[in-house]
């Protein structure tokens, strides 16, 4: 039985499945009552004068799952490490609830993180790995067994982590992140290596956490998974922000126009600030203008429209549009950046 498939949590309910009670630790337990937005403000990270992350700013809101997307080397992991105090920013700041990670009064009770899928001693059992975390965070050892059960790893808890599959390692990393029942989760590629059942389990878990008011910030290159999981997305490419906003808005951010004089209409729409690409069968794909604005522009130009409709991009389509060129891709009427 998939024990996470019956999640019933609401926005004001921090009760979790399988009788998992919020963990308490000697720093005062889970910080459930407070919300913790993740804020990245003008962060730049340079190595040897070369920028890996450049003037990056965005916010991941509580109560929402924020997907952090970008091709390999885009700066996702570096940004997460800066957020968690594992790397220092050359410029800018990264905070959780307005406080830098290292200054949080109860960091592990506030943020649960899994940023390295392989961060285990291969000769140590999964249970002992978590017991070390429990010792360091002042969490009870009983909680270790609870989170092992939660991520469905109890059967392998006494085996050496070196013998785990990638999916099992991901589950162990997730168990570590959940150990102190924190209101913020920061997970780097948590779906890597998980089987379909595991991905569904993970999705249900993260959705339930966000529904309970937690801040869930997840990097991934599994676009289909992010499409089903995230409320908001932040897209980076070459260390720069290329798009951010609600996933629903982004997927509906383009319009399809078919007109008698497409080139004249293209000129008119571009003159009004729209970004126009050629679509299939002579259509135009317009971003940056609403349907009303497109209609008004075509009316003023005296161009008859044969079709004007919303275009629903898949996240994959949008992702490749955003990351297809180094300048940051195209613009849309969501918060896309040049």
């Amino acid at each position, binding site marked *: 039985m998939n024990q996470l498939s019956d999640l019933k949590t609401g926005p004001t309910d921090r009760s979790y499945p399988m009788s998992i009670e919020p963990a308490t630790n000697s720093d005062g337990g889970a910080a459930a009552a407070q919300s913790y937005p993740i804020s990245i403000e003008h962060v730049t990270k340079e190595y040897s004068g070369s920028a890996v992350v450049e003037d990056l700013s965005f916010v991941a809101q509580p109560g929402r799952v924020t997907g952090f997307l970008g091709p390999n080397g885009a700066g996702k992991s570096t940004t997460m490490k800066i957020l968690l105090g594992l790397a220092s920013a050359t410029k800018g700041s990264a905070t959780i609830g307005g406080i830098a*990670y290292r200054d949080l009064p109860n960091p592990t009770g506030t943020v649960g993180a899994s940023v390295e899928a392989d961060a285990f001693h291969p*000769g140590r059992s999964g249970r002992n790995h978590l017991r070390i975390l429990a010792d360091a965070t002042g969490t009870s050892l009983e909680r270790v067994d609870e989170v092992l059960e939660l991520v469905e790893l109890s059967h392998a808890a006494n085996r050496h982590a070196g013998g785990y599959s990638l999916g099992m390692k991901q589950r162990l990393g997730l168990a570590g992140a959940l150990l102190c029942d924190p209101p913020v989760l920061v997970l780097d590629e948590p779906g890597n290596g998980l089987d379909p059942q595991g991905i569904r389990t993970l999705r249900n878990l993260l959705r339930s956490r966000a529904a309970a008011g937690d801040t869930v910030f997840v990097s991934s290159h599994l676009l289909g998974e992010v499409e089903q999981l995230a409320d908001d997305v932040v897209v980076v490419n070459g260390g720069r922000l290329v798009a951010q906003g609600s996933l629903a808005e982004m997927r509906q951010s383009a319009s399809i126009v078919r007109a008698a004089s497409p080139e004249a209409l293209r000129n008119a729409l571009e003159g009004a600030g729209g970004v126009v690409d050629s679509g299939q069968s002579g259509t135009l794909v317009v971003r940056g203008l609403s349907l009303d604005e497109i209609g008004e522009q075509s009316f003023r130009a005296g161009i008859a429209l044969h079709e004007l409709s919303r275009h629903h991009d898949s996240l994959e389509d949008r992702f490749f549009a955003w990351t297809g060129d180094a300048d940051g891709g195209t613009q849309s009427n969501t918060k896309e950046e040049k």
Partner: protein
Amino acid sequence: MNWLRIVRAELRKLTTTKMPLAFLIVFVVIGAGNAIAVAFGTDMDGSKTFISTAADQQSLIAFAANALVIAGLFGAIALAREYGHGTVVLTFLTTPRRPEAVIAQYAAAFVAGSVLGFVGAGVIAASMALGLSATDYGFMVSAADLAQVLAASTFAGGVGAVLGAGVGALVRNTGGAVTGTFLALVILPPLAVQMAGETATWVPGTLANVLSGTDNAAAVAAAIAAIALWALVPAAIGLVAVNRRDVV
């Protein structure tokens, strides 16, 4: 901040792998060799003069210098593998103020190294007693001298582990950390003595023998301070390096 709990976490790290067992096996092998040497070995003239007095026997079981090196390797491997396996990421997530995390690692290394030093000296003393049972000589080391040998080895083990941990934190690579520790404790001291003879008193081996009561080149208190300094310098450099660097 709760020092006790993070030191406990670090100790659990050191005791939940097979590394301590591997070092225990090393001690048993050394002990077996020692017992065989005592039981069957002779001096050049065929006599057993080398075990004929309490002082001779105390010299043979004075394990502090060895404890310094062996525990040094233990500390170096333990810290460097934290970086190699990436578990240091979790260390710095649970204790984001890195100097506190590193000091806790050093503290745990000191405790583990002390245990190794004590066990090592105990195994050597026991093996010597075993070997002596096959000879005409009995175990002549007094209880007080045996206690000094054990205490010296315990302290030297702790100090050596901190030295190794400091090198491990600085180098972050197991091979490099082992090499660095070996250089610091085994290769560089005799070179220093060759270049400046007056340093002979203050090299780790001599200081360990002073602590064990088998050398009187320096006062015990001075030897304690000097041997601690040997560990504190690389430990401090390692701490500063860890605090300045990104975790990658």
